[in-house]
């Protein structure tokens, strides 16, 4: 990938967290970075079009909005990978799902209103796919969730 321009890096570093809560947020950022509001808007739109910015919005703490979350790991035979991914991804509470290099080769996060609901959904997934070795690994302690990647 081409190197990001210094101005774009500065903008990305500024907008990954603490996005201004003000009527004209891009004018606030412009003032901080000594640029015009128009230039910030153009550059943010370009970074979005280029796919460097995935989205701009809020990220919530599941348990503070009445939900629980967990990490799941499944041992999925090669020939069942497509079916398993399709089945799991259909649940709106599955927000991240990756194939990883391990005997437990599919890892996904699950957010839901209750632990019981997650357990029931995992049983449903096992029944639908025949994949029964699925670990349910809720976090018991959070040491870090990083808000920002310095570019």
């Amino acid at each position: 990938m081409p190197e990001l321009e210094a101005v774009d890096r500065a903008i990305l570093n500024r907008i990954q967290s603490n996005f201004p809560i003000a009527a004209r947020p891009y004018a606030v950022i412009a003032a901080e970075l000594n640029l015009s509001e128009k230039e910030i808007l153009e550059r943010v739109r370009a970074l979005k079009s280029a796919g460097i910015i995935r989205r701009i919005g809020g990220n919530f703490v599941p348990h503070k909005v009445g939900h629980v979350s967990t990490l799941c790991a499944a041992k999925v035979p090669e020939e069942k990978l497509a079916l398993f991914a399709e089945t799991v991804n259909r649940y709106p509470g599955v927000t991240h799902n990756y194939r990883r290099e391990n005997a437990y080769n599919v890892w996904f996060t699950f957010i839901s209103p209750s632990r019981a609901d997650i357990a029931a959904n995992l049983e449903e997934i096992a029944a639908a796919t025949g994949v029964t070795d699925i670990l349910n690994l809720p976090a018991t302690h959070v040491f870090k969730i990083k808000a920002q990647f310095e570019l």
Partner: protein
Amino acid sequence: MLTEIEKRVIASIQGDMPIVEQPYREIAHAIGIREEELLAVLQSLVDRGIMRRFGATLRHQRSGFDANAMTAWQVDEARIEEVGALMAAFPQVSHCYRRDPKPTWPYNLYTMIHGTSEADCIATAREMAAKAGVSTYELLFSKEELKKTSMTYFPTD
């Protein structure tokens, strides 16, 4: 507890905001509240720690972080607090959690390590292992993104 208005605001801001001069005016209009009220509720959600991060989510692979390794560590429970804090302090680590071990999976501490390459992630893990005095661990490189989205809380339909 969240009010009905707060739930509406969360539902309206959890996706992708329009990149325009006055995005909050559009969002407020869409959910039938005044812009000032939307701004006040958003600030309150931040102040109460309900919204943990507000801003742009990047595609790391397109912004220079080309590799990531979820690393699972087997740590003596007596040292979990110390080791968790030590590993969380590495700037290459974005997430660090303790999870219960399982009979077929003995690991109890998890870190997400980011780097410019797989070799870079491996080097970071070695450094972490040496510093923490933990020798049993596995790096799980992501081979394929099967899904990545943000959670939809309080869907309206």
